[in-house]
Protein backbone atom coordinates (compact mmCIF):
# COMPACT_ATOMS: atom_id res chain seq x y z
CA UNK A 1 0.00 0.00 0.00
CA UNK A 2 1.64 3.21 -1.17
CA UNK A 3 0.77 6.08 1.16
CA UNK A 4 2.89 8.72 -0.58
CA UNK A 5 2.73 8.99 -4.36
CA UNK A 6 5.69 10.89 -5.74
CA UNK A 7 4.82 11.56 -9.34
CA UNK A 8 6.57 13.11 -12.30
CA UNK A 9 4.56 13.85 -15.44
CA UNK A 10 6.58 15.00 -18.43
CA UNK A 11 6.23 15.62 -22.14
CA UNK A 12 6.11 18.27 -24.84
CA UNK A 13 4.56 21.60 -23.98
CA UNK A 14 1.02 21.46 -25.37
CA UNK A 15 0.49 17.79 -24.52
CA UNK A 16 -1.26 18.78 -21.32
CA UNK A 17 1.26 17.24 -18.94
CA UNK A 18 0.79 19.97 -16.34
CA UNK A 19 -2.95 19.30 -16.47
CA UNK A 20 -2.36 15.64 -15.60
CA UNK A 21 -0.22 16.63 -12.61
CA UNK A 22 -2.66 19.28 -11.50
CA UNK A 23 -5.62 16.87 -11.75
CA UNK A 24 -3.78 14.40 -9.52
CA UNK A 25 -3.26 17.17 -6.97
CA UNK A 26 -6.89 18.36 -7.19
CA UNK A 27 -8.29 14.86 -6.86
CA UNK A 28 -5.95 14.18 -3.95
CA UNK A 29 -7.18 17.28 -2.18
CA UNK A 30 -10.79 16.26 -2.81
CA UNK A 31 -9.98 12.99 -1.03
CA UNK A 32 -8.57 15.01 1.87
CA UNK A 33 -5.01 13.89 1.21
CA UNK A 34 -1.97 16.14 1.47
CA UNK A 35 -0.81 17.39 -1.93
CA UNK A 36 1.83 19.57 -3.57
CA UNK A 37 2.31 20.38 -7.24
CA UNK A 38 5.37 22.06 -8.77
CA UNK A 39 5.47 22.79 -12.48
CA UNK A 40 8.74 23.28 -14.30
CA UNK A 41 8.68 26.83 -15.55
CA UNK A 42 10.74 28.88 -17.90
CA UNK A 43 11.34 28.44 -21.58
CA UNK A 44 8.67 25.75 -21.83
CA UNK A 45 6.11 26.40 -24.50
CA UNK A 46 4.35 24.47 -27.21
CA UNK A 47 6.92 22.12 -28.65
CA UNK A 48 9.37 22.56 -25.75
CA UNK A 49 9.52 20.19 -22.81
CA UNK A 50 7.48 20.55 -19.66
CA UNK A 51 7.28 18.51 -16.50
CA UNK A 52 5.75 18.68 -13.07
CA UNK A 53 6.09 16.99 -9.72
CA UNK A 54 2.94 16.09 -7.82
CA UNK A 55 2.99 14.53 -4.38
CA UNK A 56 -0.20 12.94 -3.04
CA UNK A 57 0.19 11.64 0.48
CA UNK A 58 -1.71 10.36 3.49
CA UNK A 59 0.84 12.23 5.64
CA UNK A 60 1.91 15.89 5.86
CA UNK A 61 4.40 16.72 3.11
CA UNK A 62 7.54 18.50 4.20
CA UNK A 63 9.46 18.89 0.95
CA UNK A 64 7.69 19.29 -2.39
CA UNK A 65 10.98 18.31 -4.06
CA UNK A 66 11.53 14.58 -4.57
CA UNK A 67 14.67 12.40 -4.61
CA UNK A 68 12.98 9.63 -6.57
CA UNK A 69 9.55 8.86 -7.97
CA UNK A 70 7.20 5.93 -7.60
CA UNK A 71 5.21 7.00 -10.65
CA UNK A 72 6.50 8.52 -13.87
CA UNK A 73 4.27 9.42 -16.79
CA UNK A 74 6.26 10.06 -19.97
CA UNK A 75 4.33 11.58 -22.86
CA UNK A 76 7.34 11.82 -25.20
CA UNK A 77 10.70 10.11 -25.70
CA UNK A 78 12.88 12.83 -24.14
CA UNK A 79 10.85 12.56 -20.95
CA UNK A 80 11.16 8.80 -20.86
CA UNK A 81 14.93 9.03 -21.24
CA UNK A 82 15.21 11.81 -18.68
CA UNK A 83 13.04 10.42 -15.88
CA UNK A 84 13.15 6.62 -16.25
CA UNK A 85 16.20 6.42 -13.97
CA UNK A 86 14.39 8.25 -11.14
CA UNK A 87 11.80 5.52 -10.53
CA UNK A 88 12.07 3.35 -7.41
CA UNK A 89 12.45 -0.38 -8.11
CA UNK A 90 9.15 -2.14 -8.56
CA UNK A 91 7.23 1.10 -9.11
CA UNK A 92 5.27 2.52 -12.01
CA UNK A 93 6.19 3.78 -15.46
CA UNK A 94 3.46 4.83 -17.90
CA UNK A 95 4.46 5.97 -21.35
CA UNK A 96 2.61 7.25 -24.36
CA UNK A 97 3.18 4.46 -26.88
CA UNK A 98 1.51 6.50 -29.62
CA UNK A 99 4.52 8.80 -29.59
CA UNK A 100 7.29 6.72 -28.00
CA UNK A 101 8.38 3.88 -30.25
CA UNK A 102 11.36 2.91 -28.11
CA UNK A 103 11.05 0.41 -25.26
CA UNK A 104 12.05 1.58 -21.77
CA UNK A 105 15.47 0.26 -20.69
CA UNK A 106 14.51 -0.58 -17.09
CA UNK A 107 13.23 -4.10 -16.44
CA UNK A 108 12.57 -3.77 -12.71
CA UNK A 109 9.44 -1.64 -13.00
CA UNK A 110 5.73 -2.05 -13.64
CA UNK A 111 5.59 -0.69 -17.15
CA UNK A 112 2.42 0.34 -18.99
CA UNK A 113 2.53 1.45 -22.62
CA UNK A 114 -0.63 3.48 -23.27
CA UNK A 115 -1.61 4.40 -26.85
CA UNK A 116 -3.03 7.66 -25.56
CA UNK A 117 -3.13 9.60 -28.84
CA UNK A 118 -4.82 6.75 -30.78
CA UNK A 119 -7.45 6.23 -28.09
CA UNK A 120 -8.15 9.94 -27.84
CA UNK A 121 -8.50 10.20 -31.63
CA UNK A 122 -10.90 7.25 -31.67
CA UNK A 123 -13.08 9.24 -29.28
CA UNK A 124 -12.94 12.20 -31.63
CA UNK A 125 -11.02 14.16 -28.98
CA UNK A 126 -7.38 14.05 -30.12
CA UNK A 127 -6.39 16.78 -27.67
CA UNK A 128 -7.55 14.69 -24.72
CA UNK A 129 -4.67 12.21 -24.96
CA UNK A 130 -3.49 13.49 -21.59
CA UNK A 131 -6.82 12.64 -19.97
CA UNK A 132 -6.77 9.16 -21.54
CA UNK A 133 -3.35 8.76 -19.90
CA UNK A 134 -4.66 10.12 -16.60
CA UNK A 135 -7.48 7.57 -16.67
CA UNK A 136 -5.06 4.74 -17.38
CA UNK A 137 -2.84 5.81 -14.48
CA UNK A 138 -5.74 5.96 -12.04
CA UNK A 139 -7.17 2.60 -13.08
CA UNK A 140 -3.85 0.77 -13.06
CA UNK A 141 -2.50 2.22 -9.81
CA UNK A 142 -5.70 2.92 -7.86
CA UNK A 143 -3.86 5.87 -6.36
CA UNK A 144 -7.10 7.87 -6.34
CA UNK A 145 -10.83 7.33 -6.87
CA UNK A 146 -12.14 7.92 -10.39
CA UNK A 147 -14.99 9.93 -8.84
CA UNK A 148 -12.61 12.46 -7.36
CA UNK A 149 -10.73 12.73 -10.65
CA UNK A 150 -14.05 13.44 -12.35
CA UNK A 151 -14.73 16.19 -9.81
CA UNK A 152 -11.26 17.57 -10.44
CA UNK A 153 -11.95 17.61 -14.19
CA UNK A 154 -15.13 19.57 -13.59
CA UNK A 155 -13.01 22.21 -11.84
CA UNK A 156 -10.66 22.33 -14.83
CA UNK A 157 -13.31 22.43 -17.55
CA UNK A 158 -15.80 25.10 -16.54
CA UNK A 159 -16.99 28.42 -17.87
CA UNK A 160 -15.95 28.79 -21.50
CA UNK A 161 -14.40 25.30 -21.38
CA UNK A 162 -17.48 23.61 -19.89
CA UNK A 163 -18.44 22.07 -23.23
CA UNK A 164 -15.21 20.04 -23.16
CA UNK A 165 -16.05 18.31 -19.88
CA UNK A 166 -18.14 15.43 -21.19
CA UNK A 167 -15.58 14.43 -23.84
CA UNK A 168 -12.83 14.53 -21.25
CA UNK A 169 -14.80 12.37 -18.86
CA UNK A 170 -15.23 9.92 -21.72
CA UNK A 171 -11.48 10.10 -22.28
CA UNK A 172 -10.89 9.31 -18.62
CA UNK A 173 -12.55 5.92 -19.20
CA UNK A 174 -11.18 5.30 -22.71
CA UNK A 175 -8.33 3.03 -21.65
CA UNK A 176 -9.48 -0.60 -21.44
CA UNK A 177 -12.60 0.06 -23.47
Amino acid sequence: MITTWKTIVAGFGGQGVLTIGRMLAYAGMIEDKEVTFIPSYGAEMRGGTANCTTIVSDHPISSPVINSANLVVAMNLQSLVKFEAMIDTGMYLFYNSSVIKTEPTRNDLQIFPIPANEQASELGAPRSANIVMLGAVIRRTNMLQLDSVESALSKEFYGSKASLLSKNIEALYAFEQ
Partner: protein
Amino acid sequence: MTRKVLMKGNEAFGEAAIRAGCRFYVGYPITPQNELVEYMSRELPEHGGTFIQSESELATINIAYGIGVAGGDCLISSSSPGIALMQEGFSFACMAEVPIVILNVSRSGPGIGGIQPGQSDYFQMTRGGGNGDYRIPVFTPATMQEAVNTIYGSFEIANRYRNPVSIMVDGMMGQMMEPVVLPEAKAPLAEERIAAEKPWALVGRGTKPTRNVIKAYAPNTTILETQVLRLFKKYESMEAELPEAVLTDVEDAEMVFVAYGSAARIVAEVMTILKERGIRTGLIRPKTVWPFPNGAFDRLGERTKIVVSVELSMGQMIDDIERAVRGRYPVRLINRAGGIIPTSEEISRIAEEMIGAYR
Protein backbone atom coordinates in the same frame (compact mmCIF):
# COMPACT_ATOMS: atom_id res chain seq x y z
CA MET B 1 -14.75 27.82 7.48
CA THR B 2 -11.94 25.38 6.83
CA ARG B 3 -12.57 24.75 3.16
CA LYS B 4 -9.27 24.15 1.41
CA VAL B 5 -8.64 25.42 -2.07
CA LEU B 6 -5.81 24.41 -4.34
CA MET B 7 -4.11 27.55 -5.60
CA LYS B 8 -0.91 28.49 -7.28
CA GLY B 9 1.30 30.44 -4.88
CA ASN B 10 1.28 33.68 -6.85
CA GLU B 11 -2.51 33.63 -7.10
CA ALA B 12 -2.95 32.81 -3.42
CA PHE B 13 -0.67 35.75 -2.53
CA GLY B 14 -2.91 38.10 -4.49
CA GLU B 15 -6.08 36.68 -2.97
CA ALA B 16 -4.60 37.06 0.53
CA ALA B 17 -3.93 40.75 -0.13
CA ILE B 18 -7.45 41.34 -1.47
CA ARG B 19 -8.94 39.59 1.55
CA ALA B 20 -6.82 41.78 3.82
CA GLY B 21 -8.63 44.77 2.31
CA CYS B 22 -5.88 45.82 -0.10
CA ARG B 23 -7.42 47.67 -3.04
CA PHE B 24 -4.28 48.97 -4.75
CA TYR B 25 -1.73 46.92 -6.61
CA VAL B 26 1.12 48.20 -8.74
CA GLY B 27 3.46 45.90 -10.60
CA TYR B 28 5.43 45.12 -13.68
CA PRO B 29 5.73 41.62 -15.14
CA ILE B 30 8.76 39.50 -14.29
CA THR B 31 9.11 35.74 -13.90
CA PRO B 32 8.49 33.99 -11.53
CA GLN B 33 5.76 36.29 -10.13
CA ASN B 34 3.80 36.99 -13.33
CA GLU B 35 0.67 35.12 -12.23
CA LEU B 36 0.29 37.60 -9.37
CA VAL B 37 0.24 40.55 -11.77
CA GLU B 38 -2.25 38.67 -13.94
CA TYR B 39 -4.42 37.70 -10.95
CA MET B 40 -4.57 41.26 -9.65
CA SER B 41 -5.37 42.66 -13.11
CA ARG B 42 -8.34 40.30 -13.25
CA GLU B 43 -9.55 40.23 -9.64
CA LEU B 44 -8.80 43.64 -8.14
CA PRO B 45 -11.18 45.63 -10.39
CA GLU B 46 -13.90 43.08 -9.49
CA HIS B 47 -13.48 44.22 -5.89
CA GLY B 48 -13.58 47.91 -6.73
CA GLY B 49 -9.81 48.13 -6.50
CA THR B 50 -7.19 49.73 -8.71
CA PHE B 51 -4.68 47.70 -10.70
CA ILE B 52 -1.79 49.56 -12.25
CA GLN B 53 0.74 47.97 -14.56
CA SER B 54 3.50 50.52 -14.38
CA GLU B 55 6.04 51.23 -17.10
CA SER B 56 8.93 50.11 -14.91
CA GLU B 57 9.81 49.00 -11.40
CA LEU B 58 11.00 52.52 -10.60
CA ALA B 59 7.53 53.77 -11.46
CA THR B 60 5.98 50.93 -9.42
CA ILE B 61 7.59 51.96 -6.15
CA ASN B 62 6.95 55.64 -6.71
CA ILE B 63 3.28 55.13 -7.59
CA ALA B 64 3.01 52.99 -4.45
CA TYR B 65 4.65 55.81 -2.47
CA GLY B 66 1.91 58.13 -3.71
CA ILE B 67 -0.83 55.66 -2.85
CA GLY B 68 0.65 55.13 0.62
CA VAL B 69 0.97 58.85 1.26
CA ALA B 70 -2.72 59.26 0.41
CA GLY B 71 -3.61 56.53 2.91
CA GLY B 72 -4.21 53.59 0.55
CA ASP B 73 -3.21 50.03 1.43
CA CYS B 74 -0.98 49.05 -1.47
CA LEU B 75 0.78 45.84 -2.52
CA ILE B 76 3.67 45.84 -4.95
CA SER B 77 5.52 42.80 -6.17
CA SER B 78 8.45 41.84 -8.31
CA SER B 79 11.34 39.42 -8.45
CA SER B 80 15.00 39.99 -7.59
CA PRO B 81 16.34 42.29 -10.35
CA GLY B 82 13.03 44.17 -10.34
CA ILE B 83 13.28 44.66 -6.58
CA ALA B 84 16.79 46.04 -7.11
CA LEU B 85 15.30 48.79 -9.27
CA MET B 86 12.85 49.73 -6.51
CA GLN B 87 15.31 50.14 -3.70
CA GLU B 88 15.85 53.86 -3.95
CA GLY B 89 12.12 54.17 -3.34
CA PHE B 90 12.26 51.84 -0.32
CA SER B 91 14.70 54.22 1.33
CA PHE B 92 12.44 57.18 0.54
CA ALA B 93 9.36 55.36 1.89
CA CYS B 94 11.20 54.60 5.14
CA MET B 95 12.34 58.20 5.59
CA ALA B 96 8.86 59.54 4.82
CA GLU B 97 7.24 56.71 6.86
CA VAL B 98 4.96 55.44 4.12
CA PRO B 99 3.39 52.00 4.63
CA ILE B 100 3.73 49.73 1.58
CA VAL B 101 3.66 45.94 1.37
CA ILE B 102 6.45 44.57 -0.84
CA LEU B 103 6.54 41.00 -2.15
CA ASN B 104 9.72 39.56 -3.62
CA VAL B 105 9.22 36.22 -5.39
CA SER B 106 12.94 35.70 -5.67
CA ARG B 107 14.96 34.13 -8.45
CA SER B 108 18.66 33.48 -8.71
CA GLY B 109 21.24 36.18 -9.39
CA PRO B 110 23.39 38.15 -9.71
CA GLY B 111 22.42 40.29 -12.66
CA ILE B 112 19.47 39.19 -14.72
CA GLY B 113 20.66 35.80 -13.49
CA GLY B 114 18.08 33.12 -14.11
CA ILE B 115 14.38 32.61 -13.47
CA GLN B 116 14.80 29.54 -11.28
CA PRO B 117 14.25 29.88 -7.51
CA GLY B 118 16.98 31.41 -5.39
CA GLN B 119 17.60 32.85 -1.94
CA SER B 120 20.44 35.09 -3.01
CA ASP B 121 18.41 38.23 -2.22
CA TYR B 122 18.93 37.86 1.52
CA PHE B 123 21.34 40.79 1.71
CA GLN B 124 19.22 42.76 -0.73
CA MET B 125 16.14 42.38 1.45
CA THR B 126 17.69 42.58 4.94
CA ARG B 127 20.41 45.16 4.26
CA GLY B 128 18.67 47.00 1.51
CA GLY B 129 20.17 48.64 -1.54
CA GLY B 130 18.71 52.04 -0.83
CA ASN B 131 20.78 54.77 0.77
CA GLY B 132 20.83 55.83 4.37
CA ASP B 133 19.92 54.35 7.74
CA TYR B 134 16.70 52.47 7.22
CA ARG B 135 15.14 49.11 8.00
CA ILE B 136 12.34 47.07 6.46
CA PRO B 137 10.95 43.95 8.16
CA VAL B 138 11.39 40.81 6.04
CA PHE B 139 9.05 37.85 6.48
CA THR B 140 10.08 34.45 5.12
CA PRO B 141 7.14 32.01 5.07
CA ALA B 142 7.78 28.38 4.13
CA THR B 143 4.35 27.05 3.19
CA MET B 144 1.55 28.42 1.07
CA GLN B 145 -0.68 28.72 4.14
CA GLU B 146 1.96 30.62 6.04
CA ALA B 147 2.58 32.91 3.06
CA VAL B 148 -1.13 33.66 2.77
CA ASN B 149 -1.43 34.38 6.49
CA THR B 150 1.69 36.56 6.43
CA ILE B 151 0.53 38.67 3.50
CA TYR B 152 -2.91 38.95 5.09
CA GLY B 153 -1.36 40.31 8.29
CA SER B 154 1.31 42.47 6.69
CA PHE B 155 -0.86 45.50 5.90
CA GLU B 156 -1.72 45.92 9.57
CA ILE B 157 1.99 45.74 10.46
CA ALA B 158 2.95 48.26 7.77
CA ASN B 159 0.28 50.67 9.01
CA ARG B 160 1.12 50.12 12.67
CA TYR B 161 4.76 51.09 12.17
CA ARG B 162 4.16 53.45 9.24
CA ASN B 163 6.91 51.63 7.39
CA PRO B 164 7.23 49.35 4.37
CA VAL B 165 7.02 45.63 5.16
CA SER B 166 8.41 42.95 2.89
CA ILE B 167 7.73 39.28 2.26
CA MET B 168 10.41 37.18 0.60
CA VAL B 169 9.37 33.89 -0.97
CA ASP B 170 11.33 32.08 -3.65
CA GLY B 171 10.17 31.24 -7.15
CA MET B 172 9.27 27.70 -6.17
CA MET B 173 6.66 29.01 -3.72
CA GLY B 174 5.32 31.36 -6.34
CA GLN B 175 4.95 28.57 -8.87
CA MET B 176 3.84 25.61 -6.79
CA MET B 177 0.29 24.67 -5.89
CA GLU B 178 -0.68 23.64 -2.39
CA PRO B 179 -4.03 23.61 -0.61
CA VAL B 180 -4.77 26.68 1.49
CA VAL B 181 -7.55 27.85 3.73
CA LEU B 182 -8.17 31.46 2.71
CA PRO B 183 -8.70 33.97 5.51
CA GLU B 184 -11.96 35.83 5.93
CA ALA B 185 -12.35 38.85 3.66
CA LYS B 186 -11.95 42.16 5.47
CA ALA B 187 -13.62 45.31 4.25
CA PRO B 188 -11.18 47.78 2.70
CA LEU B 189 -10.51 51.05 4.45
CA ALA B 190 -13.23 53.38 3.17
CA GLU B 191 -12.00 56.65 1.72
CA GLU B 192 -13.95 58.71 4.24
CA ARG B 193 -12.34 56.75 7.10
CA ILE B 194 -8.73 57.41 6.03
CA ALA B 195 -8.42 60.74 7.88
CA ALA B 196 -9.51 59.10 11.14
CA GLU B 197 -7.51 55.85 10.75
CA LYS B 198 -4.38 57.45 9.31
CA PRO B 199 -4.29 60.99 10.69
CA TRP B 200 -0.92 61.57 8.99
CA ALA B 201 -2.22 60.80 5.48
CA LEU B 202 -2.52 63.50 2.86
CA VAL B 203 -6.25 63.63 2.25
CA GLY B 204 -6.75 67.39 2.18
CA ARG B 205 -6.47 69.80 5.10
CA GLY B 206 -10.21 70.05 5.66
CA THR B 207 -10.89 71.96 8.87
CA LYS B 208 -7.58 71.09 10.54
CA PRO B 209 -5.53 74.09 11.72
CA THR B 210 -2.30 72.78 10.13
CA ARG B 211 -1.67 70.73 7.05
CA ASN B 212 0.02 67.32 7.06
CA VAL B 213 3.48 67.24 5.53
CA ILE B 214 5.20 64.06 4.35
CA LYS B 215 8.69 64.28 2.91
CA ALA B 216 11.86 62.29 2.48
CA TYR B 217 14.02 65.40 2.83
CA ALA B 218 15.40 67.13 5.91
CA PRO B 219 16.51 70.74 5.52
CA ASN B 220 19.25 70.59 8.18
CA THR B 221 21.38 68.20 10.21
CA THR B 222 19.45 68.58 13.43
CA ILE B 223 16.13 67.81 11.83
CA LEU B 224 17.62 64.87 9.96
CA GLU B 225 19.30 63.38 13.02
CA THR B 226 16.09 63.80 15.02
CA GLN B 227 14.15 62.00 12.31
CA VAL B 228 16.70 59.17 12.04
CA LEU B 229 16.66 58.69 15.82
CA ARG B 230 12.88 58.64 15.72
CA LEU B 231 12.96 55.99 12.99
CA PHE B 232 15.38 53.93 15.02
CA LYS B 233 13.12 54.01 18.07
CA LYS B 234 10.57 52.43 15.76
CA TYR B 235 13.06 49.87 14.44
CA GLU B 236 13.92 49.02 18.05
CA SER B 237 10.25 48.23 18.71
CA MET B 238 10.23 46.07 15.59
CA GLU B 239 13.28 44.21 16.89
CA ALA B 240 11.47 43.57 20.16
CA GLU B 241 8.08 42.68 18.67
CA LEU B 242 8.58 41.01 15.29
CA PRO B 243 11.30 38.32 15.36
CA GLU B 244 9.86 34.87 14.97
CA ALA B 245 11.28 31.40 14.40
CA VAL B 246 9.94 27.86 14.47
CA LEU B 247 12.17 25.52 16.45
CA THR B 248 12.13 21.77 15.90
CA ASP B 249 14.01 19.35 18.18
CA VAL B 250 16.83 21.82 18.88
CA GLU B 251 17.40 21.01 22.57
CA ASP B 252 18.60 17.50 21.91
CA ALA B 253 20.30 18.03 18.56
CA GLU B 254 23.99 17.55 17.85
CA MET B 255 23.51 19.27 14.51
CA VAL B 256 21.19 22.27 14.25
CA PHE B 257 20.14 23.39 10.80
CA VAL B 258 19.03 26.93 10.07
CA ALA B 259 16.95 27.41 6.94
CA TYR B 260 14.03 29.50 5.74
CA GLY B 261 11.46 29.26 2.95
CA SER B 262 11.73 26.37 0.51
CA ALA B 263 15.15 25.38 1.84
CA ALA B 264 13.56 24.80 5.26
CA ARG B 265 11.03 22.40 3.76
CA ILE B 266 13.76 20.32 2.21
CA VAL B 267 15.69 20.35 5.49
CA ALA B 268 12.61 19.01 7.30
CA GLU B 269 12.92 15.90 5.13
CA VAL B 270 16.70 15.82 5.65
CA MET B 271 16.04 15.55 9.39
CA THR B 272 13.95 12.41 8.88
CA ILE B 273 16.65 10.86 6.70
CA LEU B 274 19.44 11.67 9.17
CA LYS B 275 17.44 10.36 12.12
CA GLU B 276 17.35 6.98 10.39
CA ARG B 277 21.14 7.24 10.10
CA GLY B 278 21.54 7.90 13.82
CA ILE B 279 22.18 11.63 13.68
CA ARG B 280 20.19 13.87 16.03
CA THR B 281 19.30 17.06 14.21
CA GLY B 282 17.24 20.14 14.94
CA LEU B 283 15.98 23.05 12.89
CA ILE B 284 15.69 26.77 13.51
CA ARG B 285 13.42 28.15 10.82
CA PRO B 286 13.35 31.95 10.85
CA LYS B 287 9.94 33.35 9.87
CA THR B 288 11.52 36.79 9.94
CA VAL B 289 15.08 37.44 8.81
CA TRP B 290 15.03 41.12 9.73
CA PRO B 291 14.60 41.38 12.63
CA PHE B 292 16.59 38.15 12.93
CA PRO B 293 15.37 35.76 15.66
CA ASN B 294 18.62 35.87 17.66
CA GLY B 295 16.91 34.59 20.79
CA ALA B 296 16.22 31.23 19.16
CA PHE B 297 19.94 30.45 19.26
CA ASP B 298 20.02 30.74 23.05
CA ARG B 299 17.89 27.61 23.15
CA LEU B 300 20.72 25.45 21.88
CA GLY B 301 22.26 23.26 24.53
CA GLU B 302 25.51 21.52 25.34
CA ARG B 303 24.73 18.65 23.04
CA THR B 304 24.94 20.84 19.99
CA LYS B 305 28.22 20.44 18.15
CA ILE B 306 27.56 22.37 14.99
CA VAL B 307 25.12 24.86 13.44
CA VAL B 308 24.56 24.53 9.70
CA SER B 309 23.01 27.16 7.47
CA VAL B 310 21.24 25.68 4.45
CA GLU B 311 20.75 28.28 1.75
CA LEU B 312 19.93 28.56 -1.94
CA SER B 313 22.74 31.11 -2.21
CA MET B 314 26.46 31.30 -1.61
CA GLY B 315 25.79 31.92 2.07
CA GLN B 316 24.20 35.19 3.17
CA MET B 317 22.01 34.37 6.18
CA ILE B 318 25.09 32.70 7.64
CA ASP B 319 26.38 36.18 8.61
CA ASP B 320 23.34 36.73 10.83
CA ILE B 321 23.66 33.22 12.22
CA GLU B 322 27.30 33.90 13.18
CA ARG B 323 26.17 37.04 15.00
CA ALA B 324 23.42 35.17 16.82
CA VAL B 325 25.66 32.22 17.72
CA ARG B 326 28.41 34.55 18.99
CA GLY B 327 31.15 31.97 18.71
CA ARG B 328 29.42 29.37 20.87
CA TYR B 329 29.30 26.77 18.08
CA PRO B 330 31.04 26.32 14.76
CA VAL B 331 28.81 27.52 11.90
CA ARG B 332 28.99 25.83 8.51
CA LEU B 333 27.16 26.14 5.19
CA ILE B 334 25.39 23.71 2.88
CA ASN B 335 24.21 25.42 -0.26
CA ARG B 336 23.50 25.43 -3.96
CA ALA B 337 23.36 28.45 -6.23
CA GLY B 338 22.23 29.30 -9.72
CA GLY B 339 18.63 28.26 -9.19
CA ILE B 340 19.44 24.63 -8.41
CA ILE B 341 17.30 23.10 -5.66
CA PRO B 342 19.26 20.43 -3.80
CA THR B 343 17.43 17.22 -2.94
CA SER B 344 17.09 16.07 0.65
CA GLU B 345 19.36 13.14 -0.22
CA GLU B 346 22.11 15.48 -1.44
CA ILE B 347 21.96 17.64 1.70
CA SER B 348 21.84 14.56 3.94
CA ARG B 349 25.01 13.18 2.36
CA ILE B 350 26.93 16.42 2.91
CA ALA B 351 25.56 16.84 6.44
CA GLU B 352 26.55 13.32 7.39
CA GLU B 353 30.10 13.94 6.24
CA MET B 354 30.19 17.27 8.05
CA ILE B 355 29.08 15.97 11.44
CA GLY B 356 31.72 13.25 11.23
CA ALA B 357 34.46 15.83 11.78
CA TYR B 358 32.81 17.18 14.96
CA ARG B 359 31.82 13.95 16.69
